């Protein structure tokens, strides 16, 4: 296999007495789609924050395209090609949808190209009708899509999605899954989700985290049969 797109080696972060992420070794190939699941507090969002440079690890390394990016500034890591849709959407409430996509696109492209990309993504994510509306006024599900579109517009090679289906209706969830599969044709993705129906719609390889560490990594079917996984979810999530 060619060198991985993303690799973490013994990645850990400690807050006082708690190790929120413990020795995580993750390996992601080009255009791979990975689902990251685990109960609340497993360290999934924290892992994402480490990958984007919002948090500095206390141990371990992060390698993107073979280069060590551990401890780099957030904006520097974003420039290398990692984009993230955060758990609680981070958006510009006072700006329009169009402006979000344009800002994301304009950083890497010229003005004309940025306009073209903006229109393209508006179409792709289905936000054309809302393009001039203020994002602060949109419903949660729509805000998720705006953030997804914004991340896409920056054309990062690796896209991290933290709970993209949260707060969505059934139809919206299906649409999002479709979108994720489509994006996966050209980008690598790591998706954190609690909604198991959604996970099943998109999953190939699934990594299960528990108490900061990786419990098991396997295909969806194997995960469903794994008794250890069932144990950590026991009593927390009925329909796995």
């Amino acid at each position, binding site marked *: 296999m060619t060198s991985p797109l993303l690799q973490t080696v013994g990645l850990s972060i400690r807050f006082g007495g708690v190790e929120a992420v413990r020795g995580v070794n993750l390996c992601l190939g080009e255009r791979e789609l990975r689902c990251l699941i685990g109960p609340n507090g497993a360290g999934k969002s924290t892992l994402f924050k480490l990958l*984007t440079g*919002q948090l500095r690890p206390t141990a371990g390394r992060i390698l993107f395209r073979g280069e060590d990016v551990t401890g780099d*500034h*957030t*904006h520097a890591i*974003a*420039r290398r090609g990692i*984009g*993230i849709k*955060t758990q609680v959407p*981070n*958006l*510009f*409430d*006072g*700006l329009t949808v*169009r*402006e979000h996509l*344009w*800002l*994301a696109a*304009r*950083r*890497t492209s010229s*003005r004309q190209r*940025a*306009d073209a990309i*903006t229109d393209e993504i508006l179409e792709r994510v289905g936000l054309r009708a809302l393009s001039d509306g203020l994002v602060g006024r949109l419903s949660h599900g729509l805000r998720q899509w705006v953030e997804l579109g*914004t991340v896409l517009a*920056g054309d990062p090679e690796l896209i991290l999605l933290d709970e993209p289906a949260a707060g969505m209706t059934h139809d919206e969830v299906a649409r999002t899954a479709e979108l994720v599969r489509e994006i996966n044709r050209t980008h690598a993705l790591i998706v954190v989700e609690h909604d198991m129906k959604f996970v099943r719609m998109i999953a190939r390889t699934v990594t299960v985290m528990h108490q900061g560490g990786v419990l098991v990594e396997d295909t969806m079917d194997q995960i469903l049969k794994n008794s250890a996984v069932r144990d950590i979810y026991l009593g927390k999530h009925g329909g796995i």
Partner: protein
Amino acid sequence: MNRRWVSPGIIVTAAATVAVGVGAPLVVDQFQLLQLTVFATMCILALSLGVVWGYGGILCFGQSAFFGLGAYTYAVTAVNLGESTVAIVLSVVVPAVFAALLGYFMFYGRLSDVYLGVITLSVTLIFFNLANSTAGDAYRIGAARLNGFNGMPSLPTFNVPGNPGRLLDPTETFYLVMALLLIVYGGLHALLASHFGRVVVAVRENETRCELLGYDVRLHKLLIFTVGGAIAGLAGSLFANWGAFVSPNVFSLATTSQIIIWVIVGGLGTLVGPIIGCVIMQYLATELGTQQLANTSLIFGIIFLAFVLLVPRGIVPSLGVVRARLSAARARRTA
């Protein structure tokens, strides 16, 4: 992206500025012309805070620090060189450099809102104290004595570049200041419509998201803060020229409060707001200054309180809200 950033509002404001600039010398007397000149100077100062605070989201409570630095830089340079051109240039550059240094400490140190306000306020107050204590012969820069609380009188006023003997008369000075106001207003709008300007506004909205998109937030804040400092410095030189005098009052609490009042009254988030707020408050101050009924600080304090408690958005945005509500109500009625 919206190429047509020149909105109707901008055109109206620009036209009004040109109209006043061209028409005023024809209809008002010398005294009133001088009044208008200082009003326009203060509008430039108001714009500097309007862009830094309203668009950049940076709580700078010490904008008078850059204003005063510009004024004093002009004074010292003009006295030493006997010519105004270099002095004007330096009055923009020196405050800009200081703003950049201060900005570096604040933004790269990740200081947040409230702390920024207090630190910048403290900076101008400390300048005030410093300037006040420079009385006496020992305190001079080149040939220029700083004179402490007495201030520096009889400053060389603006001359035609390269011709120190040919000073600008009041009408020419008025034209110059109005032209600069127009240039600063238009220039800022152009800057805000540029890629850089849009990022600055986005930083104000959500710093995290900006960083996650790959923009260096600290640098953008630093740059817009520096721009604000430069513009305030320019206003400082215009002010020093206007009275041919500069004193530590340019750094005072009163001065920096006034700038903030202009922006609050006019409204955060527009460029025309601070101009309107400035003109209204300047006019009121002049009228109030001539009457003995009540102390100016007292009245300003009440206005400050009234606006914050009752009209927190300021005049212009509030008018915008009123307009939006009226049109929404109209739409509902016709639906």
